[in-house]
């Protein structure tokens, strides 16, 4: 157990280091001079050079990288080239928004996928199982932003039940917060749920074929109680792994869905940063996303061990 923890921590740290180099490297090769974009058309070359110096873009790359990583480690995210505002609080602000979206979408996905996948597996030869299976295939094929557009057309524009876009912080108006959250969270959650359903189904199917379940059935338990008492915990192991991996997809999906629903989350911050060539901001945001994904995967690894005692044995 301890060995595994050390091993996973080492992997996490190395991944973070590699990721930081890659993120920094991509920003360097991205075409477009941030100083020129900030100054706009007609800016003189002298003015651009001066601003580059002010941004520190004229220093050696290694120095720039070291300063950036050093700052991050101290919790200093730097100041945006474009808005001249500290980046750290901005990201924290926007991340909360995205977090709400992702967490609620994840809950919706789980609430849909766990029962649907189980039913699909338990009744995989019956019509109900096949119908659910077909439905989930459709869900898998639809990208989240398209789901979002369709949901807006139906529930906002046509029926007028829910707002088409916007965001209100939960503290300032909980009712409006929920109304505005439902459609974007659904568009992410439905698609994620469909994907997850497939994994739940195959995990449950695997468990159904296990000897201990056959034993349970032989002792007279009906299929669902047998699954409930002996199978689901085991089926959860692969599903939790997938859940961790899917978080990355969910975050990417959120970036796009935020745009469709005009939500001021990390995604819109990232898009603005890229088009304004606010390189430091983009570096910071991407790095935060990378950290989030890697840390979640790290935690999933640990959770995995907690769920499956067999993995606790030292190799």
């Amino acid at each position: 157990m301890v060995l595994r923890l050390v091993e996973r921590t080492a992997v996490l740290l190395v991944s973070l280091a590699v990721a930081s180099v890659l993120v920094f490297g991509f920003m360097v090769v991205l075409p477009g001079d941030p100083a020129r974009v900030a100054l706009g058309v007609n800016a003189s070359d002298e003015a651009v050079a001066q601003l580059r110096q002010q941004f520190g873009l004229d220093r050696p790359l290694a120095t720039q990288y070291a300063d950036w990583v050093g700052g991050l480690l101290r919790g200093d995210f730097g100041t945006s080239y474009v808005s001249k505002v500290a980046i750290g609080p901005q990201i924290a602000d926007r991340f909360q928004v995205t977090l709400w979206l992702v967490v609620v979408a994840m809950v919706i996905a789980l609430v849909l996928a766990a029962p649907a996948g189980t039913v699909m597996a338990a009744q995989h030869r019956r019509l109900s199982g096949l119908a659910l299976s077909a439905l989930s295939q459709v869900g898998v094929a639809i990208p989240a932003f398209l789901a979002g557009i369709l949901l807006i057309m139906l529930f906002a524009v046509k029926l007028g039940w829910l707002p088409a876009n916007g965001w209100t912080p939960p503290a300032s108006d909980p009712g409006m917060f929920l109304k505005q959250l439902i459609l974007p969270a659904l568009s992410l959650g439905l698609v994620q749920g469909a994907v997850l359903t497939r994994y739940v189904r195959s995990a449950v199917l695997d468990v159904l074929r296990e000897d201990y379940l056959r034993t349970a059935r032989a002792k007279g338990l009906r299929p669902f109680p047998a699954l409930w008492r002996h199978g689901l915990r085991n089926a959860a192991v692969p599903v939790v792994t997938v859940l961790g991996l899917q978080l990355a997809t969910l975050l990417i999906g959120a970036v796009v869905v935020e745009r469709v629903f005009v939500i001021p989350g990390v995604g819109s911050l990232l898009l603005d940063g890229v088009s304004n060539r606010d390189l430091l901001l983009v570096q910071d945001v991407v790095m935060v996303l990378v950290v989030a994904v890697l840390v979640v995967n790290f935690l999933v690894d640990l959770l995995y061990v907690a769920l499956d005692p067999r993995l606790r044995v030292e190799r």
Partner: protein
Amino acid sequence: MKSYSSRAIALVGAAALLALTACSAGSGTSSGSSPGGDQSLVVGLVAEPASLDFTTTDGAAIPQALLGNVYNGLVKQDESGKIVPDLAKSWTVSPDRRTYTFELVDNAKFTNGAAFTAADAVFSINRVKTAWTTSLKSVMDVVSEAKAVSPTQLQVTLTKPSNGWLFRMTTRVGAMFSQTGVGKLATDPVGTGPYKFGTWKRGDSIVLQRNDAYWGTKPFFNQVTLKYFKDPTALNNALLTGTINVIGTVQAPEALTQFTSNEKYQVIEGTTNGEVVLSFNNSRPVLKDLRVRQAIRQAIDHQALLDTCFAGRGKLIGSMVPPTDPWSEDLTGVAPFDKAKATAALQAAGAAGATLRLRLPTLPYATSCGQVVKSQLEQVGLKVTIDQLEFPAAWLTTVFKNADYDLSIVAHVEPRDLGAVFNAKYYTRYDDPTLAGLLAAADSGDEAAQVDNMKKAARRLSEQAAADWLFLLPNLVVADKNLTGLPANAITESFDLTRLARS
């Protein structure tokens, strides 16, 4: 649906009213009896500012929100293009056209409490030269001295006569700042305008509050929210579902039908200063030949192009002049559509079969119009390859800075930008002493000489085919039916909120 949106607006309005009454308690003068009482408005716009400081950050979004609303200038432009008084009640120009004497209003106050005086005007004009970092600062180079004769009289002396200077004073460069209020321009602008800056939810909206201490006619709306949308569909949906009351600038004219066919909305079409230019790199060997440039202009069926790529909205112009400039005249006949003539001219010039790189910024109008231009030019025997360059960053570096292109398409939205766009240093690489002479004469002469020389300059540009002018961007506004005071023409940098009202 309706109930949700109107309730939301009412809530925001009530909160704002509470805040306002709290603020103005004790002043005694403001009874909140302005025409619109506590009514509020939400305007949907496309580009959110990155900062609120237009002295150091470029782009149209900041003056759109703040100029004329939060900041006043000495002078401003009315909807027909005329220069009219703002903080300056009147002004005179000396006979040598180098000294301007402005009489200032005496009751203007900044939102930080300080009174506006000639000293602030001097400070603001000088500050352009010292503290501004955007390229626009060069407009003030022509000023040799600004001095306060009295608190209400300002004298500005120029190094040479310049009509352009007074005109630029109507733009953001002429905005008047408080000597004690420039510390936090990026987040806390201080001006003398009819609105004061309220809050800014980054990534979402900017709220402006009616300035109860405003020296002029107070605006109808107590609160105006400028809500920003990256996606045109989201913008349209916001109006359809009642989240916003106005779409300030329609980006996709083909989507207008859903509003024109609905009696809940009004659609307004006017003009702008945005010339959509098919720019030529005049330094390229093949494009140095006048016959080739003229042939390209003649090869394009402008009406068909406008119908295809901008849903027929917009106006055809034959040179770099919008119809609201005093020297505008119809030059669309200089190079009329004539495929046969264009083909023959290209053959005579030995340019038949030549390949041109059309490098397009990733802007919707450029992408769609670029396809039409390509197909029309290929019909007269040119080869056109299209490259997409991400806008603004990649396009700015490749086309704008390095002039690494043959043809490009972009809207030049600056007002009176003929001289700025067509010179040897600009990405058009258009080197023409005759044009430069006409422009210099226009800038230094009196009003009649200015109009006369600008007409000649525009005609010269068109006859020399320095570029092709595809069309003038329309100003398309969609709003709730009961809104009044929406400007038809958008020819200033400001989105004028002061005349808006609800009937």
